[in-house]
């Protein structure tokens, strides 16, 4: 199992029945592949459909039905088309139960930076700022470090996506929960010890005595 699959499988366990969930482009979108059998959740793509389904069979794509990354998708029975005002009305209005996004940095306050690297990469925030501001739960799904650089840092050096504290950070090494007291190590990944996580994390981690392994079933 590679890092991305570990992360996607673990995030999928955060889903519960009836949730409305937005999955970001890239790694977060992999979560859809690991929804537990029989669990009904609705995936929203901010570009305008509630009830996003799998990729269509070859030759059955519809150019007017894509996800936020522009990839072809299908819609499940009971799906609804919405325009951008309704889409972000749902997001900002607290109707979105969970958003899963990638991250460049998360810091000890639980602040997320994921939309630009000044002077290097300025893709724009797209829907990320609204998602992080408005979703009930914000789950950051990212690899623990990028080319040896820790991504969980004392304080974000990159521009923030929102001033709000995210709900959970899931990496291939750990599940970490930002709290009033700071970042708490909740679970460790396959073959990784709490010590390994602490060593790979630039931010101060609160390490409780008994830390369970991630459940990736």
């Amino acid at each position: 199992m590679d890092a991305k699959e570990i992360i996607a499988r673990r995030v999928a366990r955060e889903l519960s029945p009836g949730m409305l969930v937005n999955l970001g482009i890239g790694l977060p979108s992999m979560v859809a592949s690991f929804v537990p059998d029989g669990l009904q959740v609705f995936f929203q793509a901010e570009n305008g459909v509630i009830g996003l389904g799998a990729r269509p069979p070859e030759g059955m794509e519809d150019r007017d039905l894509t996800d936020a990354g522009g990839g072809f998708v299908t819609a499940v029975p009971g799906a609804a088309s919405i325009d951008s005002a309704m889409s972000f009305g749902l997001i900002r209005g607290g109707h979105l139960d969970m958003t899963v996004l990638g991250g460049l940095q998360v810091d000890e306050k639980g602040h997320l930076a994921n939309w630009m690297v000044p002077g290097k990469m300025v893709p724009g925030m797209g829907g990320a700022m609204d998602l992080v501001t408005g979703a009930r739960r914000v789950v950051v799904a990212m690899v623990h470090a990028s080319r040896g650089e820790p991504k969980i840092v004392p304080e974000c050096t990159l521009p923030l996506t929102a001033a709000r504290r995210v709900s959970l950070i899931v990496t291939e090494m750990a599940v970490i929960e930002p709290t009033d007291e700071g970042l708490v190590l909740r679970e460790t990944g396959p073959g990784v010890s709490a010590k390994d996580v602490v060593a790979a994390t630039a931010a101060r981690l609160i390490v409780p005595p008994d830390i369970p392994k991630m459940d990736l079933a």
Partner: protein
Amino acid sequence: MKAALKPEDAAAMIPEGAVLLIGGFMGVGSPHRLIDAIVARGVSGLTIVGNDTCRPGQGVGKLIDAGLVTRAIVSHIGLNPEAQRRMIAGEMEIELVPQGTLVERIRAGGVGLGGVLTPTGVGTLVEEGKQVIEIDGQKFLLEKPIRGDFALLDARQADYVGNLEYTLTAHNFNPIMALAADTVIAEPHHILPVGMIPPDAVKTPGVLVDYLLERAQ
């Protein structure tokens, strides 16, 4: 999937003193069976928010006749002498709000905006006690969001996901109120199996709707 409730079970969820957003315009597009069930239950101290107070014996007018309403936030009471009598007698407090401002205040409450900046009411009695904000030389009133404990909606039809369609002048406040309450109960005239409403026909996505009322027998 949402189970369809009996009217009395829906009414039983509403506590005394609740704030109810109730769809309808002079009774057209109001959830009549829900209203009857609330009258039958006799839950008092209600605040109702909606376009108008309808007429005595009709629509939300029945709640007023029964003495269940202590406060109404509406745009018009002119066709309900009973509402006017109770207002003058001090039995019911009435907040009159311009219709377009009312619907935007409810929308703001539903989509997570801090308020509405409207030109309507500037230089009139409606301005009293409100912040006036000047933007590029034009004056606007800052009108605050409205939310309800419950939204009680009329719909033409639903599916069991809770997706709603409305018809003709029975839309009015219903689609907006669906966004702005902690608990949303819809009274559809028909309920279809999941998948029978095309995604493009859905006006209120089912994720917003908590309960459906069972069809009339």
